[in-house]
């Protein structure tokens, strides 16, 4: 996974660090040294990765605004103001980001767009996760011909270009939010299935699993206590990196006019209609584009930071 091999800024000053001498002394004197779990370690590394931390804060702010603002904002996302068409952004007029060609308040529309985009990203990724983890874990745990058959299916599906199929699906069966979740989720689970299967396969043979089995731990407890925690890291990384690709894919569909149904909108739809009017009113393009890029940028940075923090191979 560590294609990037990036070293977080906090990497170097974290390991021996201050107080190393005291700790060493504590070990020598057989005092209790606080143990460091994988998660503790990871959190410490993540905390020192300023880019990831800043991204997390920005993303949380955008998400919070997207959830909260539509509740109290005086304008609705579909509410036209015929006397205020294509009004430029202003701090005083009430329409913070201005209005679009139908006089609808752009600020609240952008907030709704963020809402929809984030929701599609998260829900479709959960669908991906549910299918992919189950498929991969079953294949990896069963092994033998079951594994061979299941992974062969994944191989075949992998070589099918799914984009045309999603487009066909969206065009033919209507532009339904639920359909978007299912369609995107159903076609993007292959990667995670492969990763989970590979991890499970190698975990199954690890000494600590062997030891657990030898001491009479049940299969369920082995999976819960030994397999899942070891899968969790890689799954979390994968999830944070899948969400932005899903958001971009939804934006791509919306840009082609195949996303959510108007007057509801998503960031891709806003970019699309902004691009149509950009010669006279460039802010209609720039504002949603900035939000879309910021969300995807933050997720990517967090994903990168998590990968640095959680990938044990890099230690």
């Amino acid at each position, binding site marked *: 996974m560590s*294609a990037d091999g990036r070293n977080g800024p906090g990497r170097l000053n974290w390991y021996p660090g201050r107080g190393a001498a005291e700790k060493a002394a504590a070990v020598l004197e057989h005092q209790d040294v606080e143990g460091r779990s994988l998660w503790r370690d990871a959190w410490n590394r993540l905390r020192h990765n300023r880019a990831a931390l800043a991204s997390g804060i920005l993303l949380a702010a955008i998400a919070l605004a997207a959830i909260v603002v539509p509740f109290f904002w005086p304008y609705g996302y579909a509410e036209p103001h015929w006397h205020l068409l294509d009004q430029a952004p202003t701090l005083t007029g009430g329409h913070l980001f201005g209005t679009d060609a139908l006089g609808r308040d752009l600020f609240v529309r952008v907030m709704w767009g963020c809402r929809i985009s984030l929701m599609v990203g998260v829900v479709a990724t959960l669908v991906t996760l549910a299918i992919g983890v189950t498929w991969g874990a079953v294949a990896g745990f069963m092994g033998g011909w079951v594994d061979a058959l299941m992974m062969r299916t994944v191989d*075949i599906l992998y070589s*099918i270009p799914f984009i*045309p199929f999603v487009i066909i699906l969206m065009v*033919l069966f209507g532009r339904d939010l639920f359909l978007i979740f299912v369609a995107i989720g159903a076609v993007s689970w292959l990667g995670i299935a492969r990763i989970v299967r590979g991890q499970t396969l190698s975990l199954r043979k690890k000494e600590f699993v062997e030891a657990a089995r030898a001491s009479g731990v049940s299969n369920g407890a082995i999976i819960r206590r030994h397999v899942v925690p070891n899968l969790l890291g890689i799954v979390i990384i994968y999830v944070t990196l899948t969400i932005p690709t899903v958001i971009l894919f939804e934006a*791509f569909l919306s840009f082609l006019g195949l996303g959510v149904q108007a007057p509801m909108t998503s960031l891709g739809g806003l*970019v699309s209609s902004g691009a149509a009017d950009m010669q006279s009113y460039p802010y209609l393009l720039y504002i949603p*584009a900035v939000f879309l890029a910021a969300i995807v940028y933050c997720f990517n*940075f967090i994903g990168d930071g998590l990968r640095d923090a959680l990938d044990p191979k890099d230690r």
Partner: protein
Amino acid sequence: MLKYSLKRFAGAIPTLLIIVTLSFFMLRAAPGGPFDMQRAMPPQIKKNIEKMYHLNEPLWEQYGRYLGNIVQGDFGPSYVYRGTTVNSLIAEGFPVDLIIGGFALLIALGLGIPIGIVAAMRQNTGWDYGPMALAMLGISVPNFVVAPILILVLAVELQWLPAGGWAHGSPLHVILPTVSLAAPLVAYIARLMRGSMVEVLNSPYIRTARAKGLPTRTVILRHALKPALLPLVSYLGPAAVGIITGSIVIEEIFALPGIGRFFVNGALNRDYTLVMGVTILYGMLIIGVNLAADLLYGVLDPRVRYQ
């Protein structure tokens, strides 16, 4: 290697069959048909049209007929562009995609690889952080945002380049679509290249090469480059998918006569044969690129043996 290639080609046949079958039945299951007009057609005329295109036959018979035709390389007549075959539409549109897609890939490799190498050599300095932050921006800003902004600045404001159209592939018309298509790819490739280069540069044989006193140039070009390129070869398949996806929106934005537009318009108009023809072509392209990537892998890495 020839045997391996032939085997892989044979292996691609079931995949293609799945693509054909899935798209055929998905399209037929959808509500609406290619000859549903705003105004109702007299039933006799509609019947005649359907008979002409064999749409009145049972579905299985249509499917068998279609399979028989595409085996002979005939994708049938377009339902919406009257009097044209899907083959001629593809022959007309595909060169457009080949030009912008091919150039985009060349630009992406030509820029991405050197950027990645420099970033890896100057790890954790401004030469690393700067380009990598930019690359992160590149993969976060989709090409349907890059393209309108480029048009706005370079075509509308500065008027250096045309804002759209194809003009039989005049170089000026090719620049903007190619650049917008290449932008995310450059970013991906630079990141990938940096990562694999960092890993290679940390390996013992590079230390040996350095210890021998070889100049950095030789170490990088003769020893490090080839193994560092391997992950890039595996990326060729996803890159092809990215170019295909990107070309669909890029064609829309720049009003280019490529097959991506045929595809979307075809789907909107229920032009079954056109949509299927393009889907199959996309499938063959991706399978072909993946095969080429596997073979290239063997050329670069002598440890890989084909059976």
